[in-house]
């Protein structure tokens, strides 16, 4: 079963929950896989203090290769490029601005002289590391690259392979912030959703957006940073009751922030006894659905 850790807004504690829950579950002898799909800034392995990940595969996206001997600078490709990544210097040159290119290859198909050929650029990587019995696979976007979808697609392919080879009982997937197309891909791929939220109106707003696309009967809300705003906390509770969504509350402790900042996994830190029952409760809720 695949569990997606999401939440909408950034910084509510998705990576904190995903990393520590996966690690805690692996310590109980279950076969667990942790997948880091926050490809802009993958940091599950940092949070757990795992060894630096090593590349498993490289992902490429399309880039135009312009055959200057064929190109007559007609400008047709410049006209159609949806990303405005091609620049024509009339009568002199045709330039590609790599960071703007979305890798769609439309330029190649509209060129009347077949002067644009199939080239490629690195879009990102899939990497792997391991913490004790917990394998972690990670998608990483190359800074400056826009084709996030290609990296996610490769990551999910590697995830499926690894799930089979380690006979994974549970796969935890750490999602990026947001609610767009990447999130939809991850939602379709997963079976259960953990929505990590914090007691602020902003987080509530983003959570309500997510409820439009996730099935609430397959959702568990993690109400994180309890104790920072009693009014927002009771507002969340009454909304969750109304939506008939189950939830678990995690207190805000400065010690948590410090274990997070020092890359100490929660189950190995001195505050674990104060929090272990919360994490086991979440794990039981997830397993109870099987």
């Amino acid at each position, binding site marked *: 079963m695949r569990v997606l850790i999401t939440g909408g807004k950034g910084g509510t504690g998705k990576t904190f929950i995903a990393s520590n829950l996966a690690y805690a579950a692996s310590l109980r002898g279950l076969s667990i896989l942790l997948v880091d799909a926050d490809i*802009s800034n993958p940091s599950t392995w940092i949070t757990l203090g795992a060894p630096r990940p090593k590349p498993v595969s490289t992902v490429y996206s399309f880039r135009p290769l312009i055959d200057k001997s064929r190109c007559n600078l007609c400008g047709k490709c410049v006209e159609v490029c949806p990303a405005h990544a091609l620049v024509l210097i009339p009568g002199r040159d045709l330039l590609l601005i790599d960071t703007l290119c979305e890798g769609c290859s439309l330029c190649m198909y509209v060129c009347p002289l077949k002067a644009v050929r199939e080239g490629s650029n690195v879009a990102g990587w899939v990497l792997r590391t391991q913490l004790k019995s917990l394998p972690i696979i990670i998608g990483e976007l190359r800074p*400056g690259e826009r084709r996030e979808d290609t990296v996610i697609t490769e990551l999910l392919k590697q995830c499926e392979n690894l799930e089979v080879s380690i006979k994974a009982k549970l796969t935890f997937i750490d999602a990026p912030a947001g609610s767009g197309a990447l999130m939809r891909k991850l939602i379709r791929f997963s079976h259960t959703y953990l929505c990590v939220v914090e007691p602020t109106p902003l987080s509530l707003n983003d959570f309500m957006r997510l409820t439009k696309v996730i099935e609430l009967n397959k959702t568990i809300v993690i109400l994180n940073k309890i104790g920072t705003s009693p009014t927002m906390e009771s507002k969340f509770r009454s909304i969750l009751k109304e939506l008939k969504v189950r939830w678990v509350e995690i207190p805000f402790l400065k010690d948590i922030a410090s274990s997070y900042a020092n890359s100490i996994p929660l189950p190995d830190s001195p505050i674990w006894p104060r929090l272990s029952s919360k994490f086991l409760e979440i794990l039981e809720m997830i397993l109870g659905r099987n």
Partner: protein
Amino acid sequence: MEVVVASGKGGTGKTFIASNLLYYLSVIMSRKCVGVDADVEAPDLALALGGYSRVEYEVKSYAARRPVINMSKCIRCGLCIKVCRSAAISLVDNVPRVDIEECEGCGVCAAACPVGAIDMVSYSIGKIVAGTVKYGVRVISGELDVSMSNSGRLVYELKSTAKKLYSNYSELFIVDAAAGIGCPVISSIVGADLLIIVMEPTPQSIQGALRLKHVAETLHVKYVTLVNKYDLNPKVLNSLRRDLNIIGEIPFDNVVFESYANMTPLLRYRSDSEVSRRLMNIFNVLYEEFMG
């Protein structure tokens, strides 16, 4: 003048900085400015400033296109399926079918179709809303429909709409970007005059800031870094001050949560707090150096 607030990692305080900077500029400095919420997958800037008290503009965005296949012309050759890099077209009962949600709207299928059976039509992916929030601050927000692609395209349209609507009113735009370094963030940074990177002193956030810096350098955009909650782990900053061009450090204080819960910028909610004092100093420096 276009100033973008971003961070490689989410939740480091982008909207906190952007909303307080807008309050500082409009109310404290009486300087006209416009807030642009480019976090189109989680748009919260107006909320952090108390919500829109008056909406002056609300228009659906047709910033993207989607293919429509004319079945009477289609010869079932399958070329569109082969050329699509998003795997958004598949054969269902020998008929090509477009998965609108997977489609990026590039138009390669239409260009490749040998019989011209595919038309690209404008497609609504979200909306753009503009108006006045409390304290008279002008804010314009992009809101991507949930689970939609093309967030980068919506950001471009948002920024050009902001200029169309407000360039007579002000030349100073404060853009609140999304988390990460992906497509919508690149679209937010392209063409900006200054990038403010908001970072926390955690290894997760430092990695994010360094990755964002890389993007800024690729796009030739000047950047400075503000460290939020710096006192959680101040030691790590020594080696980064020069590398990230750190110009300000803000301590952790629970009062920031309280100001959020009250949807009030901290500079107004608790102007006497240490965090407010630090923010004022940082904004004064930014104003003198870049916006004066």
